[in-house]
C-alpha cells in the first residue's frame, strides 16, 4: 500500500559536471508555503461515506490537479474546500481542514466568508442571465455592498485583463453575459471569481464543455494565474493535468491513492492503480 504522505521533490536537471550527480538527492525542503493543510478528512452524505480520511497538503501559488475515475470523490473533495457541499442537506464531515492555518469548519467561521476567500469556477459556465457582462463580473462585489464606482471600474478592468478577456469585451460591457461564446462565458465566470480577490481558485472541470481552442486559452490563463493564486483543478483530461499542474492527486473510491509531483505521477507512479489510470487501462 502506498504511503500517502510521501512527497518526493522533482530531481533537479543536470547542469553540474557528472561527478556532482553522484551526490545523494537532498532531503525535501519545506520551501513551498502550504495553502491547504488537510488531515483525516472524511465526508458523509447522510449515511453514505464519500471521502475516507483524506490527508493532503496543497501548496500555495501552484496548480494542483485532482484526477480519478467518475464517482471517485474528486468533485466532492473540491467542493469541501469551500464548504459548497453544505448546499446538500444531510452532509457532515470529520477531520480538520486548515487554510493558511485557519480551521475552515470551526463553528466560529461563517461559510460565506470562506467562499469569499476560496472562489470556484464550474464545469458549465453560468453567467447570470439577467445581468450584463460588467454586472456579472462585479456581481460578487456589488452584492456584498461595495459601492465605490471608481473602485468597481478599476476592479472590472483588472479582472477582465487577468481573464485575458478585456480586449475582446471592453466595448460591449453592457451586453448580456449570456450573449458571448462558450469559451468567453467561462472566462467571464473566471473574471467574476477573481474580482472578489480570493486566495484560492477552485476549478471543477472548467474546460470539459469547451472546444480545443477555447480550452487552450483557458489553460494559458490558468498558467498565468499561478503566479498569484493557488489553483486546484479537477480534470478528467489527463493531458491537461500533465500540462498544467505542479502536483497531482489521484483519488479512487473516495480515498486519496497517490499524491506527488506531476512528473512522478505520470512518469513513475508508486501505486499500480495510479499507473493503470494514467495510462488509460483503468476499469
Amino acid at each position, binding site marked *: 500500500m502506498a504511503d500517502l504522505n510521501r512527497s518526493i521533490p522533482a530531481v533537479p*536537471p*543536470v*547542469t*553540474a*559536471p*557528472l*561527478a556532482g*550527480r553522484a551526490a545523494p538527492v537532498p532531503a525535501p525542503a519545506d520551501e513551498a508555503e502550504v495553502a491547504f493543510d488537510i488531515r483525516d478528512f472524511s465526508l458523509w452524505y447522510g449515511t453514505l461515506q464519500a471521502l475516507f480520511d483524506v490527508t493532503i497538503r496543497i501548496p500555495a501559488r501552484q496548480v494542483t490537479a485532482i484526477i480519478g475515475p467518475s464517482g471517485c470523490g474528486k468533485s466532492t473533495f473540491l467542493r469541501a474546500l469551500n464548504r459548497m457541499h453544505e448546499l446538500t442537506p444531510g452532509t457532515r464531515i470529520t477531520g480538520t481542514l486548515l487554510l493558511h492555518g485557519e480551521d475552515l469548519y470551526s463553528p466560529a467561521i461563517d461559510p460565506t466568508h470562506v467562499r469569499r476567500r476560496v472562489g470556484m469556477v464550474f464545469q458549465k459556465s453560468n453567467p447570470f442571465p439577467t445581468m450584463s457582462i460588467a454586472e456579472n463580473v462585479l456581481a460578487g462585489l456589488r452584492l456584498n455592498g461595495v459601492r465605490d464606482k471608481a473602485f468597481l471600474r478599476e476592479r472590472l478592468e483588472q479582472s477582465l485583463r487577468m481573464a485575458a478577456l478585456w480586449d475582446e469585451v471592453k466595448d460591449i460591457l453592457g451586453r448580456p453575459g449570456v450573449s458571448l461564446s462558450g469559451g468567453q462565458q467561462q472566462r467571464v465566470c473566471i473574471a467574476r471569481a477573481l474580482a472578489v480577490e480570493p486566495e484560492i481558485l477552485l476549478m471543477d472541470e472548467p474546460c470539459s464543455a469547451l472546444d480545443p*481552442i477555447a480550452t*487552450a*486559452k483557458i*489553460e*494559458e490563463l490558468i*498558467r498565468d494565474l499561478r503566479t498569484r493564486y493557488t489553483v486546484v483543478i479537477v480534470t478528467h483530461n489527463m*493531458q491537461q493535468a*500533465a*500540462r498544467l499542474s505542479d502536483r497531482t492527486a489521484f483519488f479512487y473510491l473516495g480515498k486519496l491513492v497517490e499524491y506527488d509531483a*506531476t*512528473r512522478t505521477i*505520470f*512518469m513513475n507512479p508508486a501505486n499500480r492503480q495510479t499507473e493503470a489510470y494514467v495510462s488509460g487501462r483503468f476499469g
Partner: protein
Amino acid sequence: MKRFFDVELETFRSQLIRMGETAIEQVRAAMKALVESDASLAKRIIADDDQIDALEVTIDDEAIRYMNLRAPIASDLRLVIVGMKTSHDLERVGDEATSIAKRAIRLGAEPPLKPYIDLPRMAAIALEMLRDALDCFLQDDEAKAIAVCKRDAEVDNINRQLYRELTSFMLEKPETISRAIELMFISKSLERIADHATNIAEEMIYLSKGKDVRHTEELKKSHNQPAA
C-alpha cells in the same frame, strides 16, 4: 497560438545546438593537441568530456519529460525523438575526441612518424560534415543533409589509404609499430566521427520531412563504394 510550453522546445533546441558546438570544439581541439603535441590541451579535452556527457543526460531527461507531460504530436514529436538520437551521436563524437586526445598525449612523447597531413585533412572533412549536419537543424535543408551523407565516402577513402600507408611503414620499420597503431586508431576515430555526422544528417532529414532514409538504397550506394 503560442503555448506556455513552447519555450521548453526552444530550450531543448538550443541545448542540442550547444552540445553540437561543444562536440565540434572538442574534435578540433583534439586535433590541435595532436598536431602541436600539446599535452595540457589534451588533458583539458579529456576533462571537458564530462560536459558533453552531462548534456546528453539533460537532453534525454528533458526529451522524456516533454514526451510524458506535453504529449507532442507531428513535428514536435519528431524534434524530441531526433534530439534524443542526435544527443547520443554527439556524445559518441565527444568520446572519440577524448580518445584522440589520449593518443595525442602518448604520441607527443615521441617524435612524429611523418608530417601530419592526412589526419588533419580527414578531420577537416569530418568537422565540415558535422557542421553541415547541425546546420540542417536550423535551416531545414534536405539537400545539404544528403550531401553530408554522400561525403562520408571521402573520409572512408582517406582512412583506407592511411591504413595501407601505415601498414607498409610498420612492415619496413618495426620500431614504428606502436606509433603507427596509435595513428591507425586515430584515423578510425575520425572515420567514426564522420559516420556519426552522417547519422545526424539522416536524423535531420527525418526531422524536416518525416522520411526515414536510413539504410535506403539511395544512400547505401554512396556509402559502400568498391575498394579502389
